[in-house]
């Protein structure tokens, strides 16, 4: 049984007929071939598959794609600016906030959602907010620093 689905992915309208059991991450990766979204556990703990749905960070392994009718999904593929690193990506690069880069997609979108928050979270709460995702390489300090710098930039009105 397949179900029709219409949603927006990275600003583009997408229609598809899919099995109801296909989760959003597989829909993005296998159906749309948007492979920047990574699967680390498929049970909602690691956060590598984090995407934005209507601006909010969600685990794309925990949602069925058919639940997203009429929703707007954003993935890492939308963060670049004219093919070059966007503000969140630049902050991660500048702070060495990635080593293997597998968790990075999830952290980038989590950070992007924090950047859009109004008012933005204060520096002290950033560490707690980032605790929703796992990184196995960096020890987190550079990720926390990157996001704090990003939020400080926003405070200064620079991005």
């Amino acid at each position, binding site marked *: 049984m397949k179900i029709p689905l219409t949603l927006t992915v990275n600003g583009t309208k997408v229609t598809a007929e899919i099995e109801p059991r296909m989760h959003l991450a597989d829909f993005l990766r296998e159906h749309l071939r948007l492979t920047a979204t990574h699967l680390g556990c*498929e049970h909602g703990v690691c956060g590598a598959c984090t995407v934005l749905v209507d601006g909010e960070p969600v685990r794309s392994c925990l949602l069925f794609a058919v639940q997203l009718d009429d929703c707007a999904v954003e993935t890492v593929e939308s963060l670049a600016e004219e093919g070059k690193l966007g503000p969140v990506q630049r902050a991660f690069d500048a702070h060495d906030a990635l080593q293997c880069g597998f968790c990075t997609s999830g952290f980038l979108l989590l950070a992007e959602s924090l950047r859009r928050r109004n008012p933005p979270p204060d520096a002290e709460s950033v560490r*707690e907010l980032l605790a929703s995702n796992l990184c196995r390489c960096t020890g987190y300090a550079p990720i926390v620093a990157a996001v704090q710098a990003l939020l400080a930039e926003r405070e200064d009105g620079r991005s």
Partner: protein
Amino acid sequence: MSSRDRTDLLLGGASFVADVVPEGCLSLAVVRSPEPHARVAGISAERARALPGVRAVLTAADLDRERTIPMRNHVRPHMEERLQPVLARDRVRYVGEPLALVVADDAYLAEDAAELVQLELEPLPPVASVEQGSPEPLFDGLDNVICRWEAGDGDVEAAFAEASHVVSASYRVARTTAIPLEGRGVVASWSEDGSLDLWGPTKFLDFTRRTVAGWFDLGEDRVRCRTVRVGGMFGVRGELYPEDFLVPWAARVVGSPVRWIEDRREHFLTINQSREQVHDYALALDADGRFLGFRSRASLDLGAYARPLGARLPMLVPILLPGPYRWPAFSVVSEGIATNKTPAGTIRGPGALDATLVREQTIDMAAARLGIDPLELRRRNFIAVGELPHTRSFGPEIPAETVESGDFAAMCDEFTARIGYAGLAEEAERRRESGEAVGVGLAAYLVDSAVGTTARARVSIAGGRAAVRSTATDVGQGLEALLRRIAAGSLGLDPDLVDVEWGSTVDAPPSGGTAASRSTVVLGNAVRAACEALLERLELGAGELAGRIRELPPATAEGEFTPDEPTLGFGMHAALVSLDPELLEPRIERIAVAYDAGHVIDRSSVVGQLTGAAVQALGQTLYEEISYDDAAQPLTTTFMDYLLPTAAEAPPVEVVLFENPDPGNPLGARGAGEAGVFGVAAAVASAVAQALGRAEEGVTELPISPRSLRPSG
């Protein structure tokens, strides 16, 4: 790391193994044993085969001959009889062992069909622990001791007989694994000419290629390992596993490319596990606190089968136990025991977190009992500069090692001064007097890295650019940037003119593997040698290539480096830990690591490695444990059961680098990928013991959890 290496990762365009989907690719699911120990009475695949979209269901009965996961090195007697078949035929020995495979049009269908494969298993008594009395043998005709090392030096009996003080303790270390965030995966595609492309192997590409070629009776050059981005390796990924056979075999049977991407449950059931041991250790001291000797007896739980690295894990016990101290005598008996658990292998800092805990915690217990400051007791026993070079013998079966350089006492003094250790100790004491549970702990160690076989590298110039090629892999450690920097420096070129090709066996000389913190030292020196050979061939001096590279015709040279002995680098950890006296949950207030990395080529990468390694080790110190019940059923198969540090638990790691060049290699570097692991458990255990007023009894169990600290224990 220069940003060009990671732009693809940040933009989302990087290709990990799960992103590789050749045209017409089918999906594979593995049917795994739910029993820890059983006879295989039958496998019925009819229902699975009947499912629409299923292309094949294969079992050991479909194999033309037996194939096993071979050993690469450190083979001990009778270990060859304990190799794992790529598919179990008549007996299974751990939960997760492959029994059958299914190929279907997509992964959802393959998993549906895998559930329809009916297994008829007749349970046998399982072995769930190294301490289980009169256990059922896992292999008929063999006992459950997989391997055994006896190592030592000097007269230990005499040392203990003349000792003024003997401090003994028994340690238990939990089974853990390394958890790269990306799971394993293999993609296989056969060409019409009978050659094979593989995506997924990452650690020992040359060994994997040679083994796979042998399995399929191919010449080595008919198997090509292709570059993929690697989502963390940490020693566990990229070892040879049954799927390295199953996926290409299935692809050949069905005549299409096949992919297998594991899920996290499979990862917990199948990737190499490590560290689990019971360990008795005794330290003999004279009246002045000078070490006279130690005795160690370790039993390591190696799980069901011998793995490619042979008897390496128990062999590391005697190698790592002596540390930076002088020992007139020591003796070690180290055994690897078979149980019905997932097989064990090396993980980042193999044997090191555990051995350092055992030695350093016993030293702290001695310090408390003798009333000597723990720092002073260590300083008294460090190998002194005047005693170098200091050769350490382990007996006839393990090669001796020589400590060539390093002023350990001076580095210890500088580290403790930089982090304000004396102030921390005073602070902890003051807070304890006011009723808080706070302690400060230290650990010292010697990091044994950059071991293994010869590395080769190729350097060429063409079209105004230089290129470096090898079969080593960038796993996030920054290999690409590092080799670019070394080549640019050796050739006198702008780093932007140097391309680095890695992770593929196509047209690349063997690197000897990406392991043991060896890439900078072993491969780096091979790249340096290749650059020198190239300049010699071109008859150019250093600095002359940059001006002429555009006009020169293409040229190529190879270089190699063989590590005769490991680089031995001094390191220390320190931790300030507090606990809620009722909840007993340790909170790391500060943690610091110092390491003599030798000549540092890429500072941010070394700091990143030490920091990340320390936080990984903190997880294994405080939270992580792969549990099995008494019937050897695994209880830890999700991230809800296996707790990893998040940003909320991970403290900032203070890093102090010493840069005393290693005299044993031209670059003067030492391996830095694993040093950050070594002393974490020891320093934290020491701090916790002090905080709880039990420094004389010590903290002797990992993980150091509230459960392990409760008096009832």
